């Protein structure tokens, strides 16, 4: 890496070399039986170079030929992608607890054993089809640049996903649990799956119309995706955000506070620096319903005459191979401030309504505009504060800039969502459009 950086410095003004190595071991149980064990060892190197304000970018998996990757980067400069920013000088980062060495000792046998244990619990208490998967993930990232930055981090992640599927569908109740090391799947989570599954095993066909709807953490991605679109510096620059001119204005109900906190290392995957080597700090997006900040990477910060907020990540809407991606503005550690009610208290507040346990098609529709229109996957129907069954064919639709003004209450629990880095509560909204067959 150092040698590649050295070579790059000789032919251009600024350079950055990014390397990632990770191992990933997933195990899946389908229909309560062991189905698959896989293993992945992946590595890769990408580089950005800047010459006369123009960007070059290249990547490879095996650094067999330094000249080739450098040449690819130099060739791509000819396209004249503008880059009037500097790579950061980043030193003295906070020490975050992101890696637990115990993860190295976790064997596949032990993971299989834990999956079996959960299968047995869920199987003995429901009549559903059981699907469990667990994985361990270890990641090393290092960034060096021509300004003298040399930073790295190592993270560990153990995750487990448990679901009970209504027979005859592929839809069900699921929960994830993640940690920096192996931990038993908490009993309150299995209890929660069993309770919701049992309460919703009857199929009901209610009439549609405007009603109260709880967006559960699993379906909050529907709203999050549109919040991310509206508050990204990329959307501001491209003039596709409906809230571009609303900084300091109240855009949501005052109960809504949204922030990004990648330094919070109580949870796995905390970050002290982003994928451009910029120091991370907590950022408030919405406070008591008032729009406070947009999030920036180096590129869009430069275009909009401001500073990066440490939100440049090598990510894309559909994942993709990290090494091949250029950083873009991304909000990776979103937290929505919890309320004080338990989930069952929220349910009691519903005269007639729906619990949107999971959403089908959150990625479809007019995202820049904030519109959503999702299928229920599943939807639990509530009357007079009680869950009376599940709805199969229904759609929940709205616009987040309306929906998030209609907050009745927010649950007190935070739950991992979106690859585990987000922590969100369940939120009860009023007056949401639900279309059904009646």
């Amino acid at each position: 890496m150092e040698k590649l950086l050295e070579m790059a410095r000789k032919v251009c003004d600024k350079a950055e070399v990014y390397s990632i190595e990770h191992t990933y071991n997933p195990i899946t149980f389908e229909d309560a039986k062991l189905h698959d064990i896989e293993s992945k060892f992946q590595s890769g190197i990408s580089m950005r170079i800047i010459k006369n304000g123009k960007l070059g970018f290249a990547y490879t998996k095996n650094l067999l030929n330094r000249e080739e990757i450098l040449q690819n980067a130099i060739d791509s400069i000819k396209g004249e992608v503008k880059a009037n920013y500097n790579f950061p000088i980043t030193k003295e980062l906070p020490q975050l607890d992101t890696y637990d060495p115990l993860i190295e000792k976790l064997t596949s046998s032990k993971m299989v054993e834990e999956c079996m244990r959960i299968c047995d619990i869920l199987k003995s208490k429901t009549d559903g089809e059981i699907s469990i998967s667990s994985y361990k993930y270890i990641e090393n990232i290092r960034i060096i640049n021509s300004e003298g930055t040399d930073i790295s981090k190592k993270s560990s992640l153990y995750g487990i996903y448990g679901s009970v599927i209504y027979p005859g569908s592929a839809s069900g109740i699921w929960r994830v649990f993640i940690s920096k090391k192996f931990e038993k799947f908490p009993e309150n989570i299995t209890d929660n799956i069993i309770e919701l599954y049992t309460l919703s095993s009857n199929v009901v066909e209610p009439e549609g119309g405007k009603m109260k709807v709880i967006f559960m953490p699993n379906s909050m991605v529907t709203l999050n995706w549109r919040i991310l679109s509206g508050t990204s510096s990329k959307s501001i620059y491209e003039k596709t955000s409906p809230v571009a001119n609303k900084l300091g204005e109240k855009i949501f109900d005052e109960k809504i506070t949204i922030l990004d906190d990648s330094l919070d290392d109580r949870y796995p995957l905390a970050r002290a620096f982003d994928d451009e080597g910029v120091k991370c700090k907590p950022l408030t997006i919405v406070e008591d319903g008032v729009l406070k900040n947009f999030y920036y990477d180096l590129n869009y910060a430069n275009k909009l005459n401001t500073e990066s907020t440490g939100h440049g990540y090598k990510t894309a809407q559909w994942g993709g191979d990290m090494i091949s991606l250029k950083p873009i503005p991304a909000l990776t550690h979103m937290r929505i401030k919890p309320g004080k009610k338990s989930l069952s208290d929220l349910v009691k507040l519903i005269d007639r309504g729906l619990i949107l346990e999971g959403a089908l098609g959150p990625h479809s529709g007019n995202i820049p505009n904030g519109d959503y229109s999702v299928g229920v996957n599943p939807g639990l129907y509530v009357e007079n504060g009680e869950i009376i069954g599940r709805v199969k064919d229904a759609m929940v639709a709205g616009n987040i800039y309306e929906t998030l003004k209609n907050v009745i209450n927010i649950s007190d629990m935070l739950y991992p969502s979106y690859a585990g880095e987000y922590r969100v509560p369940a939120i009860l909204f009023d007056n949401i459009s639900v279309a059904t067959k009646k």
Partner: protein
Amino acid sequence: MFEKMRKILSKVDADYSDIRYEIKKESVVYFRGKELTKIGSNSTDGYVLRVLKNGGLSSVVFTKESDSESAVNTAMENAQLIAKNIEKPIEFAQTKAVKDVFTPELKEDPRKISITEKLELIKKYNDIPLSYKKIATSNIDYEEVIREKYFISTEGAEIREDLITTRLLGEIISKDGNLFQNVRVRAGGSNGFSTIRDQEGNFEERTSIALNLLKAKPVEAGLYNCILNPDMAGVFTHEAFGHFSEADIIETLPAMREKMKIGNKLGNDVLNIIDNALLPDQLGFYKYDDEGVKVHPTQLMKNGILTGRLHSRRTAAEFNEPISGHCVAEDYRYSPIVRMGNIFIEPGENSFEELLAKLGDGLYILDAKGGQTAGENFTFGAQYGYVIKNGKLGEMIRDINISGNLYKTLKDIVAIGNDFVLSKAGACGKGQLNIRSCHGGPHIIINNLIVGGV
């Protein structure tokens, strides 16, 4: 290369093993509005090793040749761990061990066209929407993905195949006050750079749809009978039906598997569905899958009766059904899974005018944007549509998302058009991305679809 791969396989002590090595070459040109944001060509590579031992199957993905020894050991350990913990040993359906080298015929090899020429062409297309005042921005991606695949197995298979995909994915965003509308533009295919040429008309047409949508009305939520255009019909076929023709999805869902038994009558009499990856020059074309099995056209539904299924060697053995050659990986980062190649409803007898007359009142919805399925329920969006009254096309509508139940909907497909269009660019995400996922069909009428509105 084969020699190196054979050396790795020789270290495996198992009943069966195979290894795939791939070099993946990508070239991209991305525009965001007027700005070029990414351009360049890159090459990456890696290995996927699969081991079947004592009835346990496991795979290891690795990038460094120096990791091959630990990959072999890990794969064997994991296969044995699986074998120890399952009741029914995993078997592979028999297949012929093929030795072949296959490079597709191209109309203009994209590798022989300079990146500068590609840049100029994409810029020319991008300038079309941007010349209109009410177009807020455009996102145009040109991508070229070349997979040079090497596959060998301990049964003696030895296959070299190249998959060359060119694709143009664009989004045109119009704006009026605080209202944004977006439409997609697509081009590309499996048979060379010519699929990217002459797209000016395509960009003009999509731009005018984006502009017209600013004046369209949001659709009212409710239950409608709908005409779906070929792209919507294709997405329905792929999302709602196709995924449950993939044996690995229903393999472990006993109740679903029961419903999807061969011979069950699931659809309306007019419905015939096939997956044919061998149709020449279409996006989903390939010759061998990533288990070295030659792909076969597979009739999935005939006159509404389920007649076939898409398989890997593992699922074909499990279901005791014929292998179909549909076990495909995104690239060297993944072991293969069951995928559709080119799925479509076969054309019927009705002209578009006849479909309009048959429908009477309802909606005409066009061009999918996003779709998802969970078991029997599906949801997907349409980019735009029209109200139909008394068999006549009326005003334009927007914000259309439809939802339905697979089994009810298959019976509610009541008429099939006589036209036929296949998709030019794909992106099916089933844990891994399949950019050659191809679907299409004729216009069709589906009754009783839930439309979400906004």
